[in-house]
């Protein structure tokens, strides 16, 4: 359709869905069908809606979201792998007036960063953490993560993960919910519009807790990595519904405000 035709046609139409303000006009470098993109957009939407673009500082490390600083039109700090929770803690403690979020892969949050993640949660740091659980290390070549499911083949579990040798899929959200520090912990998915709406609501809620000085929130996202799962994006969505949710059930885990 020609541009004019679109213009013509949209005259009486209202834009109901568009790129959020808090995203720059940059193309994501994620693979086709990767949920990082959806989650990035949802966070940007929440920032827009809460009107905090000017006062938000994101922290996002290496991992497939290594270019997050390019995509968001907000101030961004890029910590070392795994240190995001501690870096966000430092930024928030230094400037409690800012809204600070931590964006972390499962390798980052649940493996190398477990110490920093756990203690930020236990201290109830007034930050908002987005924990992208795609059951493996996307960036470095699809290695096992502590979140990898039993039987799942990855480049470092070529025969599939066995519990005997490599332990069990780690349930960080449930584990951290045992602590007294966190205010809000929830697990979300983004494979269909309904789930996406719920996830968006959760993100806003988590930001609001921070703005109201209520303390630590954690949103775990079950996230598809079609490329390393060796699936097309539609199959990858199915896998989340059928297999990943089995191990990591969706929903709020705690809310204590």
């Amino acid at each position, binding site marked *: 359709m020609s541009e004019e035709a679109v213009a013509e*046609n949209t005259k009486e139409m209202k834009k109901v869905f568009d790129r959020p303000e808090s995203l720059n006009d940059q193309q994501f470098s994620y*693979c086709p069908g990767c949920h990082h993109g959806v989650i990035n957009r949802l966070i940007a939407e929440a920032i827009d809606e809460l009107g905090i673009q000017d006062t938000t500082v994101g922290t996002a490390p290496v991992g497939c979201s290594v270019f997050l600083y390019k995509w968001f039109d907000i101030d961004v700090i890029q910590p070392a792998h795994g240190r995001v929770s501690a870096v966000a803690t430092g930024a928030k403690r230094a400037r409690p007036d800012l809204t600070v979020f931590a964006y972390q892969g499962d390798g980052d949050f649940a493996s190398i960063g477990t110490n920093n993640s756990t203690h930020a949660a236990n201290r109830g740091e007034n930050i908002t953490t987005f924990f992208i659980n795609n059951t493996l290390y996307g960036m470095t070549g699809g290695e096992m993560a502590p979140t990898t499911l039993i039987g799942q083949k990855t480049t470092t579990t070529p025969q599939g993960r066995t519990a005997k040798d490599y332990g069990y899929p780690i349930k960080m959200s449930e584990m951290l919910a045992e602590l007294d520090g966190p205010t809000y912990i929830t697990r979300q998915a983004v494979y269909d519009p309904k789930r996406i709406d719920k996830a968006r609501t959760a993100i806003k809620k988590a930001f609001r807790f921070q703005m109201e000085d209520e303390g630590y929130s954690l949103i775990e996202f079950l996230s598809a990595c079609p490329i390393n799962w060796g699936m097309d994006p539609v199959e990858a*969505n199915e896998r989340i519904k059928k297999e990943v949710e089995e191990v990591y059930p969706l929903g709020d885990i705690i809310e204590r405000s």
Partner: protein
Amino acid sequence: MPRGKIEIDINRCKGCRLCIETCPQDVIAFSDDFNSSGYNYVETENPEDCIGCGFCGKVCPDVAITVYKRQKEGV
């Protein structure tokens, strides 16, 4: 006259197929072409069926879709 309408930024599209699968109206389909990044992008095949539900935009991981919806009378 269609109730909704979408614009696809074909250079952002990576041909992941998620919008196609999600659209309740089968509005979207693969194009025959590849974009400058080498992806087989999607386009609107049945634009007239679009109801402006926004599902495609929501699921698109590359924020490649803008959605318009015809406003009800009096809005």
